[in-house]
């Protein structure tokens, strides 16, 4: 048990170190830019005096390391600074946007994870059959299609032609849960379609890997039914890689929302980031990137820890 705790502490501190370096990259990268926020807010016509005053107000005249500590300290307390575009507090916008993104990713995950597990186990069970080949070709194709292609096909057939679901996901804070769900269906299905392939393939690979082991052969020789071999003998040992795949895909879902959000005009963090990059609103870009990176790093960390917990062999490295 002690060993597990020590290993987890190790991983967590490594994750924190990575986050720290990532925040440094995000901060230093932006401070390399010519001109700064004060100049951007006031525009070209501003006199040097007014720029100097604003710079002083925003603390931009301080040396880089002091600004970095202030910036990071502010973020840890929920203060992300002020947007150059509209002069508003970034923290106000970003909280809602992030919650929306999480909602979309969670919705997609609820469909994608069970679906891909079932498809993956079936593919492993009926390996090299017609079903396996078809699924293999389909998933290979869906991995290689751009997300916006899937999204627009869905919009055309499910939304415009059939009229089942709205093609615009302009959800607002005062909507009821069912209304939100209805508007989020299409983006969630798009995300599902692009992520199921990967998850399913990994599930299949994990189980097939196990099926070649001798204790499975033993079970087969004992005459146990195939379904029982998979569920009782193979699956418990396959959990580690499968859980790993699931969490990694959650990370993918949260980051991969960017394109899908733009297609469906879904008010999430990805859309905010794209807008900010286009307007070169650097404080917002920094904040969004940091949140995305932090989510990604933490989910990877969780995947790491879970795979230790579900696989005792990893606890005793040789």
């Amino acid at each position, binding site marked *: 048990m002690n060993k597990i705790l020590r290993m987890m502490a190790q991983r967590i501190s490594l994750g924190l170190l990575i986050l720290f370096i990532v925040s440094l990259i995000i901060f230093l990268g932006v401070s390399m830019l010519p001109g700064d926020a004060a100049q951007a807010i006031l525009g070209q016509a501003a006199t040097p005096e007014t720029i100097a005053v604003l710079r002083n107000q925003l603390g931009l005249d301080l040396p880089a390391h002091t600004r970095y500590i202030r910036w990071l300290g502010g973020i840890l307390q929920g203060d992300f600074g002020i947007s150059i575009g509209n002069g508003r507090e970034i923290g106000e916008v970003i909280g809602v946007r992030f919650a929306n993104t999480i909602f979309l990713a969670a919705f997609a995950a609820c469909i994608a994870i069970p679906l891909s597990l079932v498809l993956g186990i079936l593919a492993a069970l009926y390996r090299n059959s017609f079903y396996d080949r078809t699924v293999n070709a389909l998933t290979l194709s869906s991995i290689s299609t*751009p997300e916006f292609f899937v999204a627009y096909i869905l919009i055309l057939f499910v939304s415009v032609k059939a009229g089942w679901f709205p093609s615009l996901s302009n959800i607002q804070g005062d909507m009821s849960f069912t209304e939100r769900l209805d508007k989020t269906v299409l983006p969630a299905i798009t995300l599902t379609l692009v992520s199921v392939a990967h998850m399913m393939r990994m599930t299949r690979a994990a189980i097939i890997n196990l099926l070649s082991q001798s204790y499975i052969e033993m079970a087969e020789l004992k005459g146990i039914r195939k379904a029982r071999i998979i569920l009782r003998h193979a699956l418990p040992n396959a959990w580690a890689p499968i859980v790993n795949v699931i969490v990694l895909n959650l990370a993918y879902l949260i980051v991969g929302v960017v394109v899908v959000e733009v297609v469906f005009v879904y008010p999430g963090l990805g859309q905010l980031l794209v807008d900010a990059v286009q307007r070169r609103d650097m404080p917002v870009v920094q904040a969004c*990137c940091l949140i995305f990176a932090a989510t990604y790093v933490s989910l990877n960390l969780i995947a790491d820890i879970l795979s230790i917990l579900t696989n005792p062999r990893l606890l005793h490295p040789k």
Partner: protein
Amino acid sequence: MTDNAPPAEDLPDTDAVQQASRTRRVIKLLIEAPLSAKLGLVVIFVYIFVALFAPWIAPFGESELVGKKYQPWGDEFLLGTDNLGRDMLTRLIYGARNTVGIALVTTLYAFLLGGILGIVAAVVGGWTDQLLSRVVDILMAIPALIFAMLLLSIFGTSVPSLILIIGLLDATRIFRITRAVSLNVVVMDFVEAAKLRGEKLPWITVREILPSISAPLAAEFGIRFCFVFLTISALSFLGLGIQPPTADWGSMVRDTADLITFEDYTPLIPAAAIAVLTIGVNFVVDWFLHKTSGLKDELL
């Protein structure tokens, strides 16, 4: 590439015979290939042909305004016109040149960077390996698309910065795989023997290690190309990649996206062009991986 056949004036016959048997082997391999791989090869060749001969195939100029905007499909404009009145078919054809060309250059650059550093890390080892691997770890901890957007907003959206940024981010993945496969080869006896013979590191790298890792790297090239191609298309679709007036499939989808609500298929066509090429490349890579059993397809 590293053709160590004897000079032609010594043994012209054997050389010609070798050449002929090699051609025959390739043809036999192609005939025996599964349907999906054949399909993939045909797709790739069609795209290359269109990209090379774009100015001769295309009915109009790349960014020429030829009619009213959003004209429907018809005789004059086979696929209609876009939001500015440019011919869709023409831009689709030029897109093969621009989008695929830029993705190809980016992948090549990423392979040079990542591949060389990966082999160096594996061969030299020690703190060089440590340093490079840790830098790559950090770069890979940030999701690629997000990192690309951060860098693009810092350096501005132009084609050179697009190539440099995406290439750098992709090089991290190539570094990892090159380092991993090279490490397996570095410990082999024939490398050890070459070291004991007193061969220099560059010689060992080029003559002993490179031939052994070329098959997995070739497959990886296909996979990375698809990835780069999709990333660049996604960025262009978001308006952060290849900029107008250059014809590019990602931005073409973005430009004509409004038509989708009028039951018009136009925006799907450039998107399908992207999808068909990546699927084609993937089919070929899949077959290639089967043939060169260095990697198992089940692990991909």
